[in-house]
Each structure stands twice: as C-alpha cells, then as structure tokens.
C-alpha cells in the first residue's frame, strides 16, 4: 500500500514539474532568435568554468564558500535521495547497503558531513540576509515576495537537513535494537549525537518517527522541486544553459541590428542587391521583443544583487537597478506564462515591459559601463535588455530625452556630438602638421 501511494506521489510530482518545465521552455522561446557565435567546445568549457566550478562566485569569498557547500551538498545528498526513491518503490529499507558495502558507509558519512555543513551554510546565509542585512539584499526591489522567496528556500533546506538527521538517529537506535527491517547499515557521524534524545522511546514510537522523517524528507524534496519553477531558485538548473549560451565577447561590444544595417546600406547606396525587409519592432517594448537569451537570463537570475551593488547609477541613488530590470522581465514573463497556462497561446494583452514594469527614467540612467555584466556569477547580461529598451524608445517611439535628440541632430549635421563644424577638426594640430 505504502509503495503504491509512494509511486503515485512520485509520478504526480515529477509530472507536474515536467509540465511546468515545458511551459517555462515555451515562454522562453517567445523571445527573438539568438545564437552565440563561438564553438560548442568553448561553450562547454565556459559552462564548466563558470557554472560547474563557479569561478565568478569567488569575487566574494565568504558567499562563495557557503554557496559551494550547499552546491556540493546537493549532489552528495542526491545519492541518498536515489536510495530513498528505490526504497519507496520497492518497499525495502536501505536497499543499497548490501550492494555497496564499505562504499555505503562512505556515502552515508559524506552525506551527513555535508548535511551538517549545509545547515551551517544556510544559517550563515540567513544571518547575512536578515541580521547583518547585507545592503544588496535590501534595495528598493527587495520588498515582499523576493526576500520571502529567499527565506523559504533557506528554511526548506534547513528543514530537509533536520528531517534527514532525525531519520538517521531513529534508524540507528532501531538498528542497535535489531528491530524488524532495520539491519545494521551505514555510518552516521553527526546524527549519532541526536540518539540520546530518542533513546527513551519505545520501538514503535521510533518507527513512527523514522517513517515520518523519511516521508517528510522525500515529500519535502518533491514539494521543493515543484516550488523551484516559481522561485529565484531556478538558477540551480538554469545556470548551466545560461553560461553555455552566454556570449563570450568584450563587454564593450554591443551588437548592431541587422535589419537596420540593410536599410542604412540602401540609403547610403551601398545595397548589395538583397532586398530590405521590415523585420518587426526595432529594439524592445515587451519581453517578446527581447532575444530568448535575455528571457533565459531573467529566469536564471537568483536576485543576488551583485549587479546592482556595482551599478554607478544605483550607487548614486538613481532609480536604475540592473537586478530590477531582470526581475521585471521575469515578472512580465510570468504574466505571459499564466496566459499560456490558461489559454494555451499568447495574445498581446495591451501591457508591456516598458512602461508597465520598467520606466524610462531607469533605462536612461545607465552609463553602459558594463559593471553589471562583469559582476554576474552566471553571465546574465542586464545591459542587453537596457539597450533594447533604449532602441525602442529612440527609434520606434521617438521618445529619447530631449538632450539626446540635440545630440542626434549634431551628429547628423556635423558628425560630432556638439554643434561645431567639421572644418575645425584639425585646428588643434595646425602647428604639428606638414603639408
């Protein structure tokens, strides 16, 4: 009976998760075409360096170490989760123990040590966020859901660790008493210290505690799995494709719009025979005008705020926050995703990223200095979104700030940002030039 319930719960949880992953994928693919120009080998190496080995996390060593512990702990504990799933389906208890022998002891020791480290790391993160109040976690966009999301993730991790320790402690007592299926299996260097708290309990009570903790652990994991698509925690999956598909080019390089090139070439009499085609909106008004990589960026963002902490505009009190640009993009995408969920297809709803989520004041505060691009540990590019919104405002809506319109007129008339004649360009060098 327990096996049937387990199988139903497991398949349902995986099914719901798979459904939401597909919905997420459909939403991201609403973006415009994009492909990095480098070779697959370079992309794999970049993913290995930046996502697997977390190179850029090292910019902040304390956070890097605590993050690394939780990251490795996630992989180590998955071995135990695999066994829990096998046991749940087969109705066995610690099914891997006889097959793995001494390796089983190594696995349980590693799992317990890492679980203890994860516990400490999660407490450090909670402390930094809620007690030390590291400033980047408390900027304007970090109100309501974002900090709650972060705390839910950390408390869930702590809860899962505690469930595992309770389960192992009860298991060890039952093993010592040689009760039922609880045969000697595994070595538990941490949870053994919890045994005294349970030693006065009867066998039956211990079995209830062990089973309850076992179920709490696996149900917690399955619930967490289905929480992730709606959480900033998506980065644990999306950091890998996001670094793979990232563009590894100088931060200073901004792409030219190819549909503009065709028109400009024709107007300059440089057309090479290919016809000019009007190809949708210039720049971006809504998320569907952005490249799918920018949309993947938005879902990959875990709201750490390193971008905002180095943004010169944000530091000096302007409204621009690169993190908010990503969070707004994701919020808008979630709105579209909900429509996809309800109706199966996306029809414009009269709202847009620019205006309803991001204000012109924000995007015009950017100096394009690239600090946000450099700061992101998972190669998100906030500047690509900011530039696309500026392109829409300038070229489609003709709503660039008035001073910039003066700049454009000067560039058109004089080839210079100032209203100064090209004839004066070499005046500075007059005494230095030969004929």
């Amino acid at each position, binding site marked *: 009976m327990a096996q049937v319930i387990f199988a139903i719960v497991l398949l349902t949880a995986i099914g719901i998760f798979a459904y939401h992953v597909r919905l997420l994928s459909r939403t991201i693919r609403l973006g415009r075409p994009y492909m990095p120009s480098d070779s697959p080998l370079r992309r794999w190496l970049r993913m290995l360096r930046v996502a697997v080995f977390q190179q850029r996390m090292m910019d902040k060593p304390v956070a890097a170490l605590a993050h690394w512990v939780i990251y490795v702990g996630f992989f180590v504990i998955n071995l135990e989760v695999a066994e829990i799933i096998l046991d749940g389906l087969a109705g066995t208890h610690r099914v891997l123990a006889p097959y793995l022998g001494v390796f089983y002891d190594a696995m349980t020791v590693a799992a317990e040590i890492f679980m203890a480290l994860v516990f400490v790391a999660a407490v450090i993160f909670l402390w930094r966020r809620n007690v030390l109040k590291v400033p980047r976690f408390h900027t304007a966009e970090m109100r309501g859901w974002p900090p709650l999301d972060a705390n839910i993730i950390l408390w869930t991790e702590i809860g899962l660790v505690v469930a595992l320790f309770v389960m192992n402690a009860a298991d060890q007592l039952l093993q010592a008493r040689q009760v039922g299926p609880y045969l000697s299996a595994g070595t538990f260097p941490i949870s053994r210290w919890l045994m005294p708290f349970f030693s006065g309990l009867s066998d039956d009570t211990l079995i209830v505690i062990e089973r309850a903790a076992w179920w709490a652990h696996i149900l917690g994991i399955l619930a967490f799995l289905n929480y992730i698509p709606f959480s900033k925690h998506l980065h644990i999956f999306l950091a890998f494709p996001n670094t793979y598909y990232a563009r590894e080019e100088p931060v200073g390089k901004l792409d030219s719009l190819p549909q503009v090139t065709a028109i400009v070439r024709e*107007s300059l009499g440089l057309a090479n025979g290919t016809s000019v085609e009007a190809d949708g909106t210039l720049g971006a008004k809504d998320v569907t005008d952005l490249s799918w990589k920018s949309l993947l960026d938005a879902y990959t963002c875990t709201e750490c705020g390193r971008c905002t902490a180095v943004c010169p505009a944000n530091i000096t009190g302007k409204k621009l926050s690169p993190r908010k640009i990503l969070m707004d993009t994701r919020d808008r995408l979630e709105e579209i995703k909900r429509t996809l969920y309800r109706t199966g297809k996306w029809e414009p709803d009269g709202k847009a990223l620019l205006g309803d989520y991001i204000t012109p004041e924000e995007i015009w505060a950017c100096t394009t200095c690239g600090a946000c691009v450099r700061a992101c540990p998972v190669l998100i590019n906030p500047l690509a979104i900011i530039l696309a919104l*500026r392109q829409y405002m*300038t070229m489609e809506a003709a709503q660039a700030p008035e001073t910039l319109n003066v700049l454009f007129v000067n560039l058109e008339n004089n080839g210079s*940002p100032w209203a100064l004649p090209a004839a004066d360009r070499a005046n*500075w*060098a007059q005494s230095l030039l030969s004929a």
Partner: protein
Amino acid sequence: MPGRLLSAWAAAGEKPEVLYWVGCAASFDDRAQRVARAFVRLLEAAGIRWGILGTEESCTGDPAKRAGNDFLFQTLALQNIQLLKSYEIKTIVATCPHCFNTLKNEYPALGGDFEVWHHTQYLYKLIAEGRLRLPADGHLKGRLVYHDPCYLGRGNGEYEAPRRLLRYTGMELQEPPRHRDFALCCGAGGAQMFKEPEPGRKDINIERTEELLALQPQRIAVGCPFCMTMITDGVKHAGKYDSVRVQDIAELLAERLGLL
C-alpha cells in the same frame, strides 16, 4: 615632420604608419586637444609617420548607438568605414576608449576590419620595441592614482598597458578601492555625457572623484577624454583643482620624456 593629413599623405603618394583617430573630444575640447598634442609629440619622438583624417573624420557613432539610435550609429559607421577603406587604412590608434572600442569591436560586423589600438597600448608597444626610449633621468615625483576607463578596462580587458606606462613615470602608483574589473564609471558613458543625469542622491563623477581623492594623490591619471572632463569637474567640486592635477597617461609620459 612626420605628421600629415591623410589627404596630404595620399597626394604625396605615401601612407602613414598609423592613423591617429583623434575623436570629437580631442578635435574640439581644449583640454583634450592638449592630450592629443602630447600624444603626437610622443609619436614623433618615436619617429612614427602619423596621419589624421582632419575635416574628414566623423564621430564613430558610439553615443548614438548607446542612446539607442542604431540608424545614426550605422550611418556614421558605414561612412567612416568607406572613408578608411578609401585611404587603405590598416592600423588605427585612438586616444579615446569609446572610439577605440567602437572601431575595434563594432565596425568589423559592418565590414570594417582594422588593427585598432588604444594610445596606451600603442605607446607601450613603442617602448617595448625600443622605438620610444625612456631617458635615465626625468622621473616624476609624488603620488598618482589611476582611474580605469570602462571601455578600455572592463570593456576590453586592458589593464596592464596604462599601468606599465604610469610606472615608467616614476610616480608612486596607487589603486582606488574600486579598480580594474570593478572600477567605478566616471558617469559619462552610454551617452550620459550629452544629457542631464537622471534624478539621484549624487552625481557619479563626484562619487568616483571622492574615492580617488581619498588616496591624497598629487595627480590623477585618466585614459579617456570624457573621464578627464568628469573627474576634473569632480576635483573642482571638491575644491582641489589647485592641488590635484588630472592628466592623461600620454601627458604624464610626455612629461617623463621631457617633451612637454
């Protein structure tokens, strides 16, 4: 003298070794013009045959692109590329990191492939090749802080060439807390130079200049004409204009070589 307009080089049936892309700032701004003259003196000291486009030069299009006007950017870029190709230009050096970045990174996709140098890279190369010689004496004294320009440093990964040149001056080189990859912008990039700042607590150049001045330097070195304007304004704002000099790396090197 080995400097001519490109049209004059062409009329003489010759070509310069390098095109100096002057940029709008050094063409029109008094302060940046002094940097251009210092740089040209260094080129001449190294015996480089140099040329400028003079009245034929236009903005590279950097501020238009970053203000979202890709039509204007590409129009300027394609015209410049045609001009550069008509003179068969191979090598370009720019004293402005914005021009440098645009020419180097954004022109190739529009058909303009040139070998592009920032003047600090080019000057370092000339010293490394022995074409520009540092005299045994003439070291400068005092403390110096270097401000990384975004489009040279973070934008193109060039941190060493400017620092090596600055060490040659003999001054004590100090780094502000935010430097190299995490250097703070002066506030001028992304066409901000040509618009009013958005509302905020503080201007970016004031924030940056305070950080630089906290190291109590006698001089602040920059490698960009827009940083020059922003940091100079910041120094004036702090009431330090008489005691702290903001100078381009080319000016410091020219002074070290006794050319100023």
